């Protein structure tokens, strides 16, 4: 009979429930959207923050202290340690390979441009955007465009292979260098290496490069080109890695201090968490004779921003919770007033207070479940809209949101109607049943 009453109350009085359900749907969709986004935001934000550059730098272990004067490298290349280009795909094969967004190798050599022999400049070789064979992913592409999305080219990017078919090789001219030497896209230049056995090669400037960094004073060409000019086939000097990492916490700070200070359980936990430090270590383990260093400013900044955004989301969620609880509360008061006679009648027929409570709270719970479900659907849509308008990409829907949201909705509905339900106790059938019409 109880369920019959509950059912009939809904089927025949759904209009009365509609407003309460709508309240729950509103808050539930907001909570769904925020939860969805805050689960995804760490990832989304980290990717977003990747536009500020790589967060791990990999160099040869025995890297000599670079002899740089005015930003130009005077170290003779032949004495130095290198990383083998062939080892690089291993970066994408570590335990946290899914967190490796991209990486780009660098090889620098000092050159002069014919006609401007007084000025010695760097020629930087890197990958722009090329396919890298990774076990398990044939389509993987990486390069400087991915690692440093803030690199801007006026004109075109050079090709990846360097000179071919008798055509001159292609380079980018840094913006400052271009201004100083009056270079424009389309200009032909001749570049000479400054070694004892100099080599000379013609290039066409494909574009002018703006980075906000030292590259603006240099020429940038494909890695293959620089390797050939420097006579260092298959070698690179450093690799910038862009990895998705979790914010630093107590454990990672302890590990940063010294990884020996961790006990074995702590070490396992640290190693199996995508901290920038543990990802770094794994890269060191994957490639022989390299040192892998987190770029701390970038890593720490990312974590802090993500934490703050998530905190903000939690605050908004709690506000939505309270607001809809209050909404339900006032709706319940209205309902109890409207249904005073019904309540009085039940009591007159011998219903105990708790039996009336049970009916009303059950109705609220059903409103919570229905509202929560509808809210999940609406919230999934809402989070896509938010995702598209803020991050320019869809937000993945986490299934965990559904049970959590329904539980929260029921909780809102119940807690909202719990207080007003006390009115039921105060309702005397003698007063409501003999009302004059």
């Amino acid at each position, binding site marked *: 009979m109880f369920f019959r009453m509950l059912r009939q109350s809904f089927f025949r009085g759904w209009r009365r429930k509609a407003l309460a359900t709508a309240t729950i749907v509103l808050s539930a969709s907001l909570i769904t959207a925020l939860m969805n986004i805050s689960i995804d935001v760490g990832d989304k934000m980290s990717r977003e923050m990747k536009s500020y550059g790589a967060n791990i730098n990999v160099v040869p272990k025995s890297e000599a202290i670079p002899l740089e004067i005015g930003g130009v490298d005077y170290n003779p290349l032949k004495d130095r340690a290198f990383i083998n280009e062939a080892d690089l795909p291993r970066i994408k094969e570590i335990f946290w390979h899914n967190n490796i967004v991209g990486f780009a190798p660098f090889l620098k050599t000092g050159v002069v441009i014919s006609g401007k022999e007084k000025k010695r400049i760097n020629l930087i070789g890197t990958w722009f955007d090329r396919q890298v064979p990774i076990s398990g992913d044939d389509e993987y592409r990486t390069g400087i465009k991915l690692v440093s999305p803030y690199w801007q080219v006026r004109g075109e990017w050079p090709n990846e292979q360097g000179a071919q078919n008798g055509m001159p090789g292609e380079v980018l001219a840094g913006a400052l260098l271009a201004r100083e030497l009056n270079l424009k896209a389309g200009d032909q230049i001749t570049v000479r290496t400054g070694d004892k056995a100099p080599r000379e090669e013609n290039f066409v400037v494909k574009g002018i490069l703006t980075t906000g960094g030292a590259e603006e004073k240099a020429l940038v060409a494909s890695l293959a080109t620089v390797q050939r000019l420097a006579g260092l086939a298959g070698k690179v000097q450093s690799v910038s890695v862009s990895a998705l990492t979790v914010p630093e916490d107590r454990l990672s700070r302890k590990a940063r201090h010294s990884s020996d200070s961790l006990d074995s359980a702590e070490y396992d936990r640290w190693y199996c968490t995508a901290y920038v430090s543990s990802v770094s270590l794994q890269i060191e383990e994957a490639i022989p004779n390299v040192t892998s260093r987190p770029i701390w400013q970038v890593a720490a900044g990312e974590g802090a921003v993500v934490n703050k955004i998530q905190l903000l989301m939690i605050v908004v969620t709690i506000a939505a919770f309270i607001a809809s609880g209050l909404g339900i509360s006032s709706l319940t008061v209205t309902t109890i007033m409207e249904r005073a006679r019904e309540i009085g009648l039940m*009591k007159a027929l011998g219903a105990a207070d708790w039996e009336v409570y049970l009916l009303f709270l059950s109705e609220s719970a059903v409103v919570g479940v229905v509202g929560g479900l509808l809210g999940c659907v609406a919230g999934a849509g809402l989070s896509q809209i938010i995702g598209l308008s803020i991050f320019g990409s869809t937000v993945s829907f986490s299934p965990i949101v559904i049970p959590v949201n329904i539980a929260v909705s029921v909780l809102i509905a119940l807690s909202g109607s719990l207080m007003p339900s006390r009115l039921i106790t105060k309702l005397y059938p003698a007063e409501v049943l003999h009302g004059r019409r």
Partner: protein
Amino acid sequence: MAKKIVLETKGLTKRFGSVTPLDSINMQVREGEWVAIMGPSGSGKTTMLNLLSCLDAPSAGEYILDGVATATLTEKQRVAVRREKIGLIFQQFHLVPYLTALENVMLAQYYHSMIDSKDAEQALAHVGLGHRTGHLPSQLSGGEQQRVCIARALINQPAIILADEPTGNLDEANEEVVLDLFKGLHREGRTIILVTHNPELAEFSDRVVRLQHGRVVHDESAH
């Protein structure tokens, strides 16, 4: 042989602050008796019925219903007395709007003991609504709604039936139908206390109690 006393009050009094709508009522009602309570508006009829139906507790005096002294019971215990011993009929019918006629009758069964739809259908048939069991209150006329209430009041075999102006909201034709039902109940030997303004309704009762300013001013057999 005198029938057993179902209901007895001794000095039953109700006060609301300085107002005393009911002042020292002494009354006995025997099994199978049909008592009409009459009096001008504000004389305390409804107040009295509320006390007799255990919807309200008296300020003073005693009230023994079917052998149970109820004056000093707690609200919880009064709920139990209502459930077990009393059938209530109101001027405004008071049916649950989203339950059918049948379900409204079953509601009384549910709070009393357990539901039995066969029994509830029979009770509705008894008041001439055997064909309307699936209708909602809004689909029934006032007279039909009141008949559902009567069926509901009877369903648990109460010791006493209390009605407050049951025909107050009805037209003459429906009043007639309801009056006939009360006559039938009386013939079956039910104990009935009925508050009414209508002398016609009182005419068929065994006894008329007149109230004025909360006191019994007249109590005698109608015939």
